[in-house]
């Protein structure tokens, strides 16, 4: 995924969409879906591991979002609200499918992440490797990295999506980066 695939994060534009949806304007719902369908699908795809599961998850997310948007008080929080719904849908599905406790593995003593090069091909190759590495991570770590790096949510927004304190997000990010470095077997540095 490239940054160009992400809708520009404009909380006021989100609020404008939400207010129009709450007023019942049909075109606003179309715009809402056009704006957020792909980011939500990619997030679901990253965590669920298949296109079909991502399709089902996104459908559930939109159902819940359409039914709940009238109760969204602050439209500027649309992005964490939508990803929060997606998080709940994914966790419900994972619990149902695998009946496994969603706990993270312990810390590992590892080095830093790689620096991204300027070559687009090299960058794409690194991104593909990152996606593969992410897919092998435990669910919690995969999720926090997906939200923070791939979906570019802020720490506060990730905390709202996961319903945990910001400190917990930071520690999960720290652990996830170390696990990912271990998966990739590489060294380097990235903030």
């Amino acid at each position, binding site marked *: 995924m490239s940054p160009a695939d992400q809708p520009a994060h404009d909380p006021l534009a989100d609020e404008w969409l939400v207010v129009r949806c709450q007023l019942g304007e049909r075109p606003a719902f179309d715009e809402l879906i056009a704006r957020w369908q792909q980011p939500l699908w990619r997030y679901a795809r990253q965590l669920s591991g298949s296109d079909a599961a991502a399709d089902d998850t996104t459908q559930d997310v939109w159902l819940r979002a359409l039914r709940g948007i009238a*109760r969204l008080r602050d439209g500027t929080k649309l992005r964490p609200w939508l990803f929060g719904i997606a998080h709940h849908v994914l966790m419900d599905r994972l619990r149902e499918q695998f009946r496994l406790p969603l706990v993270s593995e312990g810390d590992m003593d590892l080095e830093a992440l790689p620096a991204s090069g300027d070559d687009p091909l090299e960058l794409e190759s690194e991104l593909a490797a990152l996606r593969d590495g992410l897919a092998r991570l435990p669910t919690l770590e995969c999720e926090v990295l997906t939200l923070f790096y791939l979906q570019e949510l802020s720490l506060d927004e990730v905390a709202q999506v996961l319903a945990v304190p910001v400190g917990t997000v930071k520690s999960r990010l720290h652990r996830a980066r170390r696990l990912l470095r271990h998966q990739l077997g590489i060294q380097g540095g990235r903030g």
Partner: protein
Amino acid sequence: MNTTAVSALLDQELSTRSRTGHVLLLLAASAMSAVVGSLWATEPALPPRTAVAFAVLTCVGVCWAAYAAWVLRSRRVLLGLQRVVAARMAALFSAVALFGALAVGLLAGKPAAWLAALVFGAMLALATTLLVRAQRHYARLCRRRAELEQRFSSPSPK
């Protein structure tokens, strides 16, 4: 999930016909429960089978009203102007039913009419409260939309 599927989902979720149907079901079921329940509670010499039938009908009406309220709250949530229209319908319906019950109570002196009038009066009070809240909510949303559009200084921020 493709655009067609999302569009079908939108059509299904935003159906005005379904919302109107459930508002009407809520009002009709509430009115039926009020009338039949009042008769059941106040008629002095009802045959046992009629009393049982009235009790069952009252329960059925209450169940349908509860179902319609649940659908409107969690499945077909009313948006903006739809809330205002639904509350106006409820207020008008309750007022007509209240005056009807009062007229029957005054002209025929039926105790059931007074009990029904009490229930319809409570429904009218609730509907009026909901109408005021819905109108405030709608006005607030319209104001906010206008503020945002003014800030974007064009009809669309894109």
